């Protein structure tokens, strides 16, 4: 599944970034690398964007960015 579909009470592991160039680098700048654990923490009151917790920091991604991040749900 992609990051935007991840339920809010679950954690996931990033498996792939389906984007290239500057957008991909920015995601990696923000700590989104294959293998990293991530969870959806806060949704903006207007519905978009969403803040994700990655290694203890809160990173904000808009919906179209989250759709390029593939994740696998972690076991509870």
């Amino acid at each position, binding site marked *: 599944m992609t990051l935007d579909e991840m339920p809010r009470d679950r954690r996931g592991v990033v498996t792939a970034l389906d984007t290239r160039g500057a957008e991909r*680098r920015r995601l*990696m700048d923000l700590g989104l690398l294959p293998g990293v654990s991530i969870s959806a923490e806060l949704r903006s009151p207007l519905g978009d964007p969403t803040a994700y917790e990655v*290694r203890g920091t809160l990173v904000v991604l808009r919906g179209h960015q989250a759709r390029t991040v593939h994740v696998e749900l972690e076991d509870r």
Partner: protein
Amino acid sequence: MRGPGGGTEDLPTPRPGPSQDTHDSHDAAPGCASCALSTGGARLARLGLAPGRHDHVVALAGNPNTGKSTVFNALTGLRQHVGNWSGKTVARAEGGFTYGGARYRLVDLPGTYSLLSTSADEDVARDALLFGQPDVVVVVVDATRLERNLPLVLQIRQITGRVVVALNLVDEARRHGLTVDARHLTRELGVPVVPMAARRNEGIPDLLAAIAQVAGTEDAPAPLRLVHKDPALEEAVTELAGRVAGRFPGVPNARWVALRLLEGDPGIEAAVRDGTLGELATPATPVERAG
């Protein structure tokens, strides 16, 4: 809410502080008259890294919102406003300080995540580090977000060995239950790593000592050599690095330059074309720079 200078009347240029000399990047030539880098003087001046009347030039790098401005203030005694969000400081600030009888010029680079030139800020920081060849690069690192900060440290280490890592916000890390092993980092990075809490003025003396040590040394560690896992890439980097070293003998970071050329970095290509890269071949040691 407020610019780096703090007021309204002095925007957008950073405010000169009480104890620093007020020359800016345009009139720094005199101090270079006797230095080995005379051909590069204009370029240094443009990069804002000419030593001027100072003995050493220290560049301050780091990710956005790591407390870079706080470290800058602690070192220079200036009061650049520090907000709690990324990209607070937009204009470059400069200051000076004296330590152990030597005069240091401190140049604040834009806060960036990397030096891969995806933005104008990254170009500025990259050019300053590569072509400015500061005597010391202080990389301010947020101890609570080490993973996010280390890519920049590694990239800077690939360019130069004259690095001091200021491991800032250790107090906050402690509050959040994080302990960072500075000795381990020092071993891995091959450069001094100084734990500090700049907001509380903790660790500043250690940072100053580390800066002085790196500034004064003749044999700083070589730039970090990253081996690429992809054999084809590794081979290409090695081959091209050999040619870079052949064309510009003495260039200290041939592998990094080769990698950037392989990626087609326009800034580095231009530096090859106009020969700027050749100026790096003359190592600028602190002794030669002293004006």
